[in-house]
């Protein structure tokens, strides 16, 4: 029963965006699809029309060896009871991506957090001011090249 819902979504997505869908697998009832960064916004709006109306999370991951950030959009469909994760890769030097605030207003703070902790620039997000850290002068702390233990030794245990 569940598998045909997955196949239905797979055909719908791949028919519209054939080439820009890098991979689409449905292991144990969960959709994980990798998309090229340019088509990410359109694929997300298609997924939203297909019933994935709950945006659970916008996760940033720093793959420093590949020189890329990976952004994972976690979606959930209340009607179909399926979870979908859409992943895109953007370059680490100029991490710019189009904001999805127009699709989900709730995404504004998730993107603001990722901006502060990773340094990813979300074009179109109304407010990207610092969220957690006050007058933070170092590089964004969740990047792999920021070593918290070395920073702590210098900042707190230096005396």
């Amino acid at each position: 029963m569940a598998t045909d819902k997955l196949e239905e979504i797979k055909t719908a997505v791949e028919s519209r965006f054939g080439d820009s869908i890098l991979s689409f697998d449905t292991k144990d009832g969960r959709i994980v699809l990798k998309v090229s960064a340019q088509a990410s916004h359109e694929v997300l709006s298609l997924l939203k029309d297909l019933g994935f109306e709950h945006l659970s999370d916008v996760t940033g991951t720093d793959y420093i060896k590949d020189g890329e950030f990976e952004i994972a959009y976690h979606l959930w469909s209340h009607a179909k009871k399926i979870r979908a994760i859409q992943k895109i890769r953007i370059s680490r030097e100029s991490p710019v991506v189009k904001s999805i605030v127009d699709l989900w207003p709730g995404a504004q703070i998730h993107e603001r957090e990722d901006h502060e902790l990773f340094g990813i620039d979300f074009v179109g997000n109304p407010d990207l001011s610092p969220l957690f850290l006050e007058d933070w002068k170092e590089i964004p702390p969740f990047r792999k090249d920021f070593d918290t233990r070395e920073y702590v030794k210098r900042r707190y245990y230096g005396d």
Partner: protein
Amino acid sequence: MSKLLPRPIRSKGDAAANSLWVINYFTACGFMELLPWVGSGYDMERFGILAVATPRHADVLIVAGYVTEKAVSRIKRIYDQMASPKYVMALGSCPMTGGMYWDSYSTVKRIDKYIPVDLWVLGCPPKPENIGHGIVMAMNAIKGGFGGH
């Protein structure tokens, strides 16, 4: 029967010890162990301890757990606004040495570099009996003439 008779107030410290007012600013996880004290588990009002809203009326500041970089400036400002004699009680291991978050980039490792701390209660977070042990110890010290800061 003798417990019901009012005890004579012998010294200035005696009055201060029986009316320690705590600032209603519970920073972190120690607040969970202060719930029985605020509520009816251990009921701190039996000792004359009251949670007041403004630092002007407060005698005791409880640093109840880890202190982040953002929170330490607020704690310092509240501490400065309190009238002396004032006392600081730190709960748990995080204010003393950074504890669980010793390598976190946003928590302060030693609170006594920012405000003088009079009493450390160990535990992560300390049990209500530990905090009671600390309160009784503080009251006896104040009765004995400990002036605080």
